[in-house]
């Protein structure tokens, strides 16, 4: 959880909104109406998940505090079981370690009422055929890291022939272009769908946030991050974070059944620069 939540923590003081449903928990972070990130923690990730609410509860909290707090619970070298409960008597988020009867760690995080009008991206497909590509996470991160020096604006172009993705930055110091070419033998671009050329510019600051804090296991597993361009040039970046090596894994394997998928999904939505200007 710490890994997944840290991936959407791009600054120190950051407010997040948590939405709880029968399917799991979604944490949403936004930045100046240009960037939104969502972390999906499905109920299957939890040892036990009880949901007894009529409307999906939503509450705001400080992401930094939540992550630091979760970190306090996890002692190095030992797996700990934490109970997370909402709401507390004062609408707090309550956390409690449940490993030992004689020693426990607990926390109460104050929540706030989230803004009723949330800026929503309404991400819709750009046309009848999807425009997307899947690239190795490590390569994507490296390319975006490299694009730091040319400038504040990065142009991302997808072209069908020859199938390729180009990330280009033009700045005072010079230009830098990174090409991901799609051909059979390359395993860099895992998938590519695009039937007409699309090109959009994104603020580097926000583009960088989509890969800056990727947990090390995403880079190590190097599965692939999926990037989709939607209507109006809105870009969706999806990462998968493995959530394993916990007590539950041991329990699941000792019980002799196949453990359900232990993946947390992270999604970033990024508006192109033209839309921001509007």
């Amino acid at each position: 959880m710490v890994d997944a939540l840290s991936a959407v923590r791009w600054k120190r003081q950051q407010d997040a909104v948590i939405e709880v449903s029968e399917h799991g928990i979604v944490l949403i972070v936004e930045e100046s109406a240009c960037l939104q990130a969502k972390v999906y923690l499905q109920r299957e990730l939890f040892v036990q998940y009880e949901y007894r609410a009529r409307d999906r509860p939503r509450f705001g909290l400080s992401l930094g505090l939540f992550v630091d707090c979760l970190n306090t619970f996890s002692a190095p070298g030992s797996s700990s079981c934490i109970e997370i409960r909402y709401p507390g008597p004062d609408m707090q988020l309550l956390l409690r370690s449940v490993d030992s009867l004689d020693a426990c760690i607990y926390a109460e995080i104050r929540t706030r009422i989230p803004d009723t009008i949330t800026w929503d991206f309404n991400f819709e497909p750009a046309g009848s055929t999807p425009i997307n590509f899947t690239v190795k996470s490590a390569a994507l991160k490296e390319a975006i890291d490299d694009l730091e020096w040319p400038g504040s604006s990065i142009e991302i172009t997808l072209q069908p022939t020859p199938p390729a993705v180009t990330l280009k930055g033009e700045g005072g110091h010079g230009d830098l272009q990174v090409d991901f070419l799609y051909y059979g033998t390359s395993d860099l671009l895992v998938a590519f769908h695009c039937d007409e050329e699309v090109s959009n510019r994104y603020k580097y600051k926000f583009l960088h946030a989509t890969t800056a804090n990727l947990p090390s296991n995403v880079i190590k597993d190097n599965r692939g991050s999926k990037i989709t361009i939607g209507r109006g040039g809105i870009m969706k970046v999806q990462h998968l974070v493995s959530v394993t090596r916990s007590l539950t894994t041991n329990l699941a394997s000792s019980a002799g059944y196949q453990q359900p998928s232990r993946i947390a999904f992270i999604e970033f939505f990024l508006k192109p620069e033209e839309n921001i200007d509007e």
Partner: protein
Amino acid sequence: MKFKAFLTDNGISLLEKRLLPALDKLDRTCVLYLTPQHTLFLHNLLSSSTVIQSVAQVANPALFLEHRISSQCDDRIALTLDTSLLLRALRSVVTISSSCPVQIKLVKKLPPSTTQPMPFLSFETKGRNSAVIHDVPISKPFSRSQVLELQAAIDSSQTLPKTLVQIPYLNQLMSFMERMRHVGDSLNVGVSKYGDLHLEISTPMITLGTEFQRLLVLGERAEPPAASDPGASPGKRMEVAIQGGDGLMVQVTVKNFTKSLSCHLAKPDCAFYGIEEQSGCLVVVFQFFIPGTRITDKAISLHCRIPVIDTGCN
């Protein structure tokens, strides 16, 4: 005023590997108090009540092969020194492999380019081919009245809280404090006669705490009320204990509490926590066992008194 002694190997190892590294973390300056029976290292016993105080005492036979001490103040000598320099001198003398024991004595020497002789604690060791003398600068030894004042402060620091609870796993407490200390500056510490130790950092945004239950109790103890709710929150349980007169809670700085945990470098076997009502401080007594046994080693004692920033809710 004379002091001369030969350190035992165990004594050197106790000072060099355990006591001094811990004391150095508490505060660099300490008072070395030599008496015919004990050697004591004292921190802040005579200073203001906002800093952590500590008393480390070792029986002389555990440190010295033989020793001679004489002064006009009932053969007691007190002086101030820098623990890191003392540690450095000890580390330097142990590097010389020698069958001769390390000699330690009080000397007055004329440092280069001065006319006034200065007091030093001198460590001397002779190897096969070389000899090392390491002089640690010290303060002028305390006057008789200062020594008496110091002795009175030690005596009053021996008052123990009515209830002490034992923490057998210092490591757990340390790792918890390590991760918790950035949350806030002050820590609420509660101790109950039921054997509970409760630590909590509270800010307007978050309350983060840990609770240890069913700990070994020394002194006054009590049974938790039969009607108590086992599912109650740790804060609520401590509140009930305080209201029933079975618990005390104080607030100390996270910095001081964390500092006191550096005493683990002295490798104590466990620690006891208690709240001293009269002087209003959190007392931590570290217990040492005779190696290989569960019997208290009476030759070593170490305790800290952490000043309270607020009298708390009781």
